[in-house]
């Protein structure tokens, strides 16, 4: 029989680490139906090896741990704190458990933060689904000198509790064993009486009233009753209660609210936390004179009133210096040389094998040259993501959001918008996806609209090429102008959008500040692997196709004969048709227009298109000369750079925007506005610049 397990838990509870441990490399990422919440599914691995088995990147791990348990699929639920009906993540989670009825739910709990984590556990226990609690971070609890009586905790909660350490794999065998047993024997959580007195009576009266209706809908009466008491309109509608019942429930609750002196939602939250207070008093022994937590000590420096912003700025500069400075360039150059060698090797091989000249030309000049130009860029992306994911996993990014909330709110956004925007410097696609962490659609859409202004990493080769050709002495200055210019545009756009499209205030900023933790190699490696894979997939699909199409369009005429000159080719005709649009901007040549078009497929293609169209090799001195032909003046080059900085993002980013904004119209409108803005700004640069430079 095929089993399905669900993994539930708070954010920052180590859920991702546990999921990766339990499933290894066998993961599938998709979306929950109808909403933009990521759904990860994986096949559960057997756990016989305990500690030593899972270190290193997923590729290396696969052979060592080939033994898979094909019978169990593990579904990773979003990180949530409660099962309220207010956020997509919570609704998705509770619907999955109540409607899909997984065979067991594994609830990961941060043992250093039991009270708030168990709040979710109490709600999960109401669902009449086998539940196993994985008590994570036991190593930290021990280090703090605290002690948790696992057996009495299990007894108090009415569910099996397994102490684990997801970081090093301790306790996972037992966790899997207990979960399998709970699923096979269908062991339901024990019925807990978390409320007392008036609340207890009121809850039981409601449960009694709706028991049959709830059963008919496949819901646990206790869960349905609790939700009704809390004022959950989704459950109220689902149960299709008659007027009379609703009226009685209303009266019960009105009386209870008067007795308790609180309103309904507060009564239940209070009851759960009061119950947990008792559980924790019984099961946890806190160390005497606990020293100040390491996080608090680190924060005294990193979040210091005067130092916080300078340190933050320094961190960001450091990230950029490492990625784009001498170190990053050294790695990127080495990689590029390697690729060039590979291509020439293949070229020689093809010649030796007497390949037809046109096939060789297509493969070497079209496919390999294009893909090679993109691949050269891989080290930069990987390095940037490495640094950003270290900052994220360490807990610093949450602090960055805390720091930036007030300034971001001035723009009409919230602190959390800052993280996607920073990621936008790497790649717009994951940045747009990162906006999912915001729960309000307004904030999400607003952030996504501004993200493309953060100059993405794929534009770096364009900037690098142009600074070498036109501004060899002022490289740093040009880079700064471009990056800051993009940010300035984002600020200006934000203030316009705030007054027009996005009225009102940003969503509340209620967020856990997680403890600082050392990022694990496995987690960072996993993220890097996913990013690199994603990038390579794009390189070998969209970008490869685009390169071949561009090569085809520029090699053949519309009559499908070989084009003698570029003007005759299909691409030349199309480019020539569009070129006049860019004439006022100073770069009205067919080549420039064509490069702009291919840049929509992928920004990296701008460079390869310019190379292919000028019949030169990327980065060669011939290409530099050719560029001076395409862009008659430094000002025209500056205008082109401005346009490339601001115009619509690539198709992959557009696809992500459409998905995450939940609307094609708004995504289309925003990229059109960006392109119009790019045109106008480049026009200003060229025309006003022309007054000063001759």
């Amino acid at each position, binding site marked *: 029989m095929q089993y399905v397990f669900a993994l539930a838990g708070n954010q920052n509870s180590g859920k991702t680490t546990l999921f990766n441990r339990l499933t290894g490399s066998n993961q599938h990422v998709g979306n929950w139906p109808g909403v933009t919440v990521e759904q990860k599914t994986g096949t559960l691995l057997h756990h016989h090896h305990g500690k030593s088995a899972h270190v290193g990147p997923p590729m290396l791990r696969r052979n060592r741990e080939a033994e898979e348990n094909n019978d169990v699929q593990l579904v990773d639920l979003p990180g949530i*704190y409660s099962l309220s009906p*207010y*956020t997509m993540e919570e609704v998705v989670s509770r619907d999955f458990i109540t409607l899909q009825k997984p065979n067991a739910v594994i609830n990961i709990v941060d043992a250093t933060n039991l009270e708030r984590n168990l709040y979710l556990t109490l709600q999960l226990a109401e669902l009449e689904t086998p539940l196993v609690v994985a008590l994570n971070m036991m190593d930290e609890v021990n280090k703090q000198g605290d002690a948790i009586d696992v057996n009495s905790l299990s007894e108090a909660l009415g569910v099996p509790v397994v102490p684990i350490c997801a970081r090093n794999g301790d306790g996972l065998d037992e966790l899997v064993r207990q979960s399998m047993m709970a699923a096979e024997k269908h062991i339901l959580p024990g019925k807990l009486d978390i409320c007392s007195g008036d609340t207890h009576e009121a809850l039981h009266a409601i449960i009694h009233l709706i028991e049959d209706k709830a059963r008919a809908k496949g819901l646990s009466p206790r869960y349905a009753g609790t939700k009704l008491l809390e004022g959950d309109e989704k459950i109220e509608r689902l149960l299709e209660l008659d007027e009379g019942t609703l009226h009685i429930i209303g009266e019960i609750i009105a009386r209870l609210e008067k007795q308790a002196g609180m309103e309904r939602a*507060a009564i239940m939250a209070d009851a759960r936390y009061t119950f947990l207070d008792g559980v924790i008093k019984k099961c946890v022994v806190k160390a005497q004179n606990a020293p100040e937590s390491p996080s608090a000590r680190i924060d005294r420096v990193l979040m210091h009133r005067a130092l916080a912003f300078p340190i933050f700025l320094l961190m960001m500069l450091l990230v950029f210096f490492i990625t784009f400075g001498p170190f990053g360039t050294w790695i990127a150059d080495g990689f590029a040389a390697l690729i060039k060698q590979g291509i020439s090797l293949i070229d020689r091989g093809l010649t030796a094998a007497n390949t037809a000249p046109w096939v060789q030309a297509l493969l070497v000049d079209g496919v390999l040259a294009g893909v090679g130009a993109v691949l050269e860029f891989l080290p930069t992306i990987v390095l940037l993501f490495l640094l950003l994911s270290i900052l994220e996993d360490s807990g610093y990014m949450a602090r960055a959001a805390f*720091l930036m909330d007030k300034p971001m709110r001035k723009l009409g956004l919230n602190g959390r918008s800052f993280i996607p925007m920073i990621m936008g410097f790497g790649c717009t696609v994951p940045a747009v996806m990162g906006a999912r962490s915001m729960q309000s659609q307004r904030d999400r859409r607003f952030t996504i609209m501004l993200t493309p202004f953060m100059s993405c990493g794929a534009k770096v080769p364009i900037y690098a090429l142009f600074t070498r050709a036109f501004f060899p002495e002022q490289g740093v200055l040009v880079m700064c102008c471009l990056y800051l210019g993009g940010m300035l545009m984002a600020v200006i756009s934000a203030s316009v959008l705030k007054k027009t499209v996005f009225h009102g205030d940003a969503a*509340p900023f*209620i967020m856990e500040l997680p403890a600082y933790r050392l990022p694990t190699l496995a987690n960072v490696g996993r993220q890097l692997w996913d990013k690199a894979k994603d990038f390579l997939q794009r390189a070998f699909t969209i970008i490869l196709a685009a390169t071949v199409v561009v090569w085809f369009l520029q090699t053949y005429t519309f009559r499908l004969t070989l084009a003698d000159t570029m003007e005759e080719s299909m691409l030349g005709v199309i480019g020539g048709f569009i070129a006049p649009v860019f004439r006022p901007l100073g770069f009205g040549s067919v080549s420039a227009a064509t490069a702009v078009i291919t840049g929509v497929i992928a920004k990296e293609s701008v460079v390869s298109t310019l190379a292919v169209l000028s019949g030169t090799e990327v980065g060669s001195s011939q290409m530099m000369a050719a560029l001076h032909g395409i862009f008659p003046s430094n000002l025209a080059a500056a205008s082109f750079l401005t346009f490339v900085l601001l115009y619509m993002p690539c198709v992959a980013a557009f696809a992500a925007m459409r998905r995450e904004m939940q609307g094609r119209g708004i995504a289309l409108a925003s990229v059109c506005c960006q392109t119009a803005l790019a045109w106008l700004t480049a026009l200003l640069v060229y025309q006003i610049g022309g007054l000063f430079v001759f």
Partner: protein
Amino acid sequence: MAKTLADLMPGEGGTVAYVGGEGALHRHILDMGLTPRTRVKVGKLAPMGDPMEILLRGYSLTLRKADAAEIILEEE
């Protein structure tokens, strides 16, 4: 006027009496553990004075002052 969580200075503590706000915000504040009778302490403020860090139930939570003003504290 009643004292609210937003009135506390860093290092000061209090006990929650009542949680205001509506709908999702109200519910979210409660879910995060800011229920009546909970002891809270203000950790630090962001360098620009807002948002604030609230220490409760052994963890830290960020809250904007505007939202913290919805949380009424008991008279000491």
